[in-house]
């Protein structure tokens, strides 16, 4: 153990150098770092919202509604297909996660084919080997046939909804892509949104909206100014105007939408004759539908319904067939900008509610970090004094190891782009405590060996060797715990797990190898008869 191979020495030096290289960017200014060439590591680790201030929102999608809509569609499709193919059916009804119906024994085969077709069509294209994807499964029980959504199908729907929602949320919250907004999935129905540097969530929530759907409707041809007491004729529905968009009063519009927001590709606020307007553009199929509607309904109002409110009902001035057009209205610049943003971002594919929100004012975050940093520095200095007082030169060696331990931790965290939170700092404290303990174990063991009458060299050797098993066991167990906390925990527990596991990984290296290299090289240099501990 007193032997340190050249390989070990160089490996240790390379690790330390790499640590400095990766940790370095954190000590430098952000603008300077971004100017560095790309082959130089330039990642910095992030500070959690609890340390830098910002807003955290956990949004939960109403997946039940989404699934219900899918199932309603399934039922409608099944009914339509059966009718189109003239198959007599009975008792068509919704059942748990699907639809079921009964047919005459003679029509069973045909009905089963229809059910398979419906399941395949709704399953979203054929899968491998031409088989329908497994989103829906068809079951025949006597003369009763059922089509049900499978677990895989449910997961697929949820995944699609969340992916779509995350993209739309990003567009809405951070249209310019400058805000370092983090948007992540959590589980099957939740999305986490983190916006640093924001102390109020109202603006974000307004941008997110809790919009179910945006749709375009034709307005009733004769009842143009209904009141809230107007009774809607069949096929029509009464909507209030959105007051914050400058729309007063009520609108009577066709219940079935002509178009929905998913066809919009772009919308911008612009000016025409000094007044704010909105320009927009549809995708190809949207443009085709829009062209047809506008041709047939010139001089009639066309209502845009968002979250069950009419946000605007511009009158169609001419047929619009190029796929783009403008909306004039009683807009202020602000309301036009907001509407353009809503139109551009599209509607969220499901209703989202805020399940959890946290904001930390930037001042509180700054206070926390300042207090934390000062307390940590003070604590560290006290440890330096303590270790040097207790173990002299060897104490100094272990302080060198401890500082490199911190640098390596910063390097790991930068490389992994992880986030340092307040509980994360606790993880750092525990890992540093254990790193110190590793050194204490080694040195106390040396003292014991000296008491047992060993020479300096022999004491150094067995001090490291005997302490090694305890160091490995304590570190491995705790690293394991840290990894598990990271994998299964949420929020603060995760942050703690990350720094703990990374800090201890660094500690095995520093407490054992670096301290040993220092002690051994010191011994080779001085060849002392006794140890200064």
């Amino acid at each position, binding site marked *: 153990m007193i032997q340190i191979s050249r390989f070990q020495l160089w490996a240790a030096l390379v690790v330390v150098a790499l640590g400095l290289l990766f940790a370095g960017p954190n000590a430098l200014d952000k603008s300077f770092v971004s100017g560095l060439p790309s082959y130089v590591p330039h990642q910095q680790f992030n500070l959690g919202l609890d340390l830098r201030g910002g807003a955290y929102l956990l949004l939960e999608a109403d997946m039940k509604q989404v699934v219900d809509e899918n199932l309603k569609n399934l039922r409608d499709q099944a009914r339509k297909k059966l009718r189109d193919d003239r198959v007599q059916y009975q008792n068509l009804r919704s059942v748990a996660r699907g639809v079921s119906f009964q047919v005459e024994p003679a029509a069973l085969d045909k009905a089963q084919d229809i059910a398979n077709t419906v399941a395949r069509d709704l399953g979203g294209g054929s899968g491998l080997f031409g088989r329908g994807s497994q989103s829906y499964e068809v079951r025949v029980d006597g003369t009763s046939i059922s089509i049900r959504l499978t677990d895989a199908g449910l997961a697929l729907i949820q995944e699609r909804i969340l992916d779509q929602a995350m993209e739309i949320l990003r567009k809405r919250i951070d249209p310019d892509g400058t805000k370092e907004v983090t948007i992540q999935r959590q589980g099957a129905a939740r999305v986490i949104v983190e916006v640093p540097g924001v102390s109020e969530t109202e603006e974000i929530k307004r941008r997110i909206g809790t919009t179910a759907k945006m749709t375009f409707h034709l307005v009733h041809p004769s009842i143009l100014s209904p009141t809230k007491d107007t009774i809607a004729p069949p096929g029509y529905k009464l909507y209030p105007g959105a007051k914050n968009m400058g729309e007063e009063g009520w609108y009577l519009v066709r219940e079935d939408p002509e178009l929905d927001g998913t066809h919009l590709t772009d919308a911008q606020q612009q000016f025409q004759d000094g007044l704010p307007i909105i320009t927009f553009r549809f995708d190809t199929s949207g443009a085709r539908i829009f062209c047809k509607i506008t041709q047939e309904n010139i001089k009639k109002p066309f209502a845009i319904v968002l979250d069950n409110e009419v946000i605007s009902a511009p009158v169609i001035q001419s047929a619009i067939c190029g796929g783009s057009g403008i909306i004039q209205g009683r807009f202020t610049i602000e309301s036009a900008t907001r509407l353009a943003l809503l139109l551009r971002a599209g509607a969220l594919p499901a209703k989202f509610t805020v399940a959890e929100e946290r904001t930390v004012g930037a*001042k509180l975050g700054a206070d926390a970090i300042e207090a934390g940093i000062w307390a940590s520095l003070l604590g560290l200095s006290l440890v330096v004094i303590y*270790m040097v007082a207790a173990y002299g030169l060897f104490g100094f060696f272990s302080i060198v190891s401890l500082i490199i331990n911190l640098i390596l931790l910063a390097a790991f965290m930068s490389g992994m782009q992880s986030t340092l939170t307040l509980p994360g700092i606790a993880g750092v404290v525990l890992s540093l405590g254990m790193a110190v303990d590793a050194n204490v174990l080694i040195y106390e063991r040396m003292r014991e060996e000296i008491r047992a009458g060993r020479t300096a060299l022999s004491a150094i050797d067995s001090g490291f060797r005997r302490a090694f098993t305890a160091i490995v066991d304590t570190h491995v167990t705790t690293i394991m715990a840290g990894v598990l906390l990271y994998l299964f925990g949420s929020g603060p527990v995760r942050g703690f797990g990350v720094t703990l596991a990374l800090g201890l990984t660094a500690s095995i290296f520093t407490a054992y190898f670096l301290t040993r290299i220092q002690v051994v090289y010191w011994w080779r240099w001085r060849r002392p008869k006794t140890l200064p501990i």
Partner: protein
Amino acid sequence: MGFARLVHHEPKIDFVRARFVAFGLTGLLFVGVLVTLLTRGLNLGLDFQGGLLLEVAHQERIDVGEVRNKVSALGLGDVQVQTSGDRAVMIRAKKPPEVAEPKPGETVQPGETAEAKAFKRIREALGPGYQVMRQEFVGPTVSAGLFRDGMIATGLALLAIALYMAFRFEWQFGLAGLIANFHDVTIAIGVYSVTGLEFDLVSIAALLTLAGYSINETIVIFDRLRENMRRYKKTSFKEIINFSVNQNLFRTVMTAGSVLVAVLPMLIFGGEALFAFTLAIVVGIVVGTYSAIYVSSSLLIYLPTVRKWRDEKDEKGAAAKARA
């Protein structure tokens, strides 16, 4: 020059003999924890209970009574107002708010949720001059999930540690370590109950810190036990425990000391946010050291005898010499 050098010989304290006193103490502590949990309970934080919290600061000193009057007039249900430092108050509504009817003249934004309305009302009621430091809302679906996730993660971590110890040592050690951990965490929860400190997700991280320290302590002792059991095959297990704990005593004191000096500034200057952690670490040093001797090691006396190393060949014949 170190002060620890003043002691040249290993102490010879009979720890094992005092174990019945310790068992009594442990029993008393457990009864105490049970009583305080039943009578005082835990001050569950927002994370586990749901509801909303608003922390506001003011330029001048805040009159808590006035804030309380203003806020309680809003009809938000059970609202707590407490000071947080010199110029700040924390306003907390335990139940998720149900603000159904908009007040006359209140504009309702599309998509504005009940908690957003409640926050807005509180801020409006407070009037100008207040700065929002922190605003939190935890919905009922989340609070249960957070608690569950935290518990599952903790449970798995503790189980994995026990399994590793069983693998590296013997199953008795894994079991004893697990029980010692359970002991320490229970006592720490008791501390939360007695002090009335808020128990939230951060507290779980604090408990994990404590458990981490305690495991470290236990393993260091076990490592020594393992080594001494291999060396001194004729010696009784109780003697080996005594011997190992004494050998380790300086290391225990040194480590506890170094962690204490690192943690004390945080306890004093680290601010409210770090307080819970540092307190947990301090409690962990005391409880962890105690349980490493009197829970995990003492349990081994009563578990089926650990034989593995005692039947191995004596590799180091010189071991007995070292003892003398």
